[in-house]
């Protein structure tokens, strides 16, 4: 994707501290789209989600994300499903990584393991004290 065609930015702060509400690790991310308007949204860090990032329609439309296609997948329960895939970019401390964004109807934002891998980040969770952190991998 050429630089001028990049349509969205998702900004992830360096060494982010999250919350552990209802025993769920949540990190605040900032999403910026083609309109230039940025929005902070809470993303659930889902270590069981082997994808990149998933956001709901209601968050994607105002950001003006650009559609790349439709992805088919077989879910863990054996059922088939399709969802929209958009192109975007993740930025950490001004350093940006191009990525793809899954768009789903479910009103939840998920941060998946593939994105953490691309960002070279370590996910730290200490459930006993409710510590949630995403830091640079060593």
């Amino acid at each position: 994707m050429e630089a001028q065609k990049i349509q969205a930015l998702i900004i992830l702060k360096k060494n982010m501290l999250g919350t552990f509400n209802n025993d769920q690790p949540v990190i605040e991310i900032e999403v910026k789209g083609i309109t230039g308007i940025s929005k902070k949204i809470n993303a659930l860090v889902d270590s069981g989600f082997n994808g990149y990032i998933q956001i709901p329609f209601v968050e994607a439309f105002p950001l003006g994300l650009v559609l790349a296609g439709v992805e088919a997948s077989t879910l863990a329960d054996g059922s088939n499903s399709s969802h929209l895939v958009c192109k975007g970019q993740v930025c950490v401390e001004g350093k940006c990584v191009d990525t793809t964004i899954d768009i789903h109807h479910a009103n939840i934002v998920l941060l998946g393991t593939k994105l953490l891998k691309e960002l070279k980040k370590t996910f730290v969770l200490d459930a006993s004290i409710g510590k949630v952190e995403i830091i640079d991998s060593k």
Partner: protein
Amino acid sequence: MADNKSLSLEEITKLGERFYTEELKNSLEKQYMGQYVVIDVQEKKYKINPDRLAAIQEATKEFGDKLFYIIQIGSTKNPSLNYTEKKYAWNF
């Protein structure tokens, strides 16, 4: 998005699914397990890459700025919270 505006998302999904299942699945699963295939359903051409964005970029560069059918070869996806996924109008 440009070229395949005449195709709806539902048509892209159905054509892509048929092309993948009937012509690609068996051969690709032997060699490219876990990688992403991005298919131009009208031209029946595709690009494969371990990285989904790279596969989309390669397809866009070669086939034009259009909507593609995307699938991870031979993989069962584990969106662990997607147990709530249901059949809606936009689930093709």
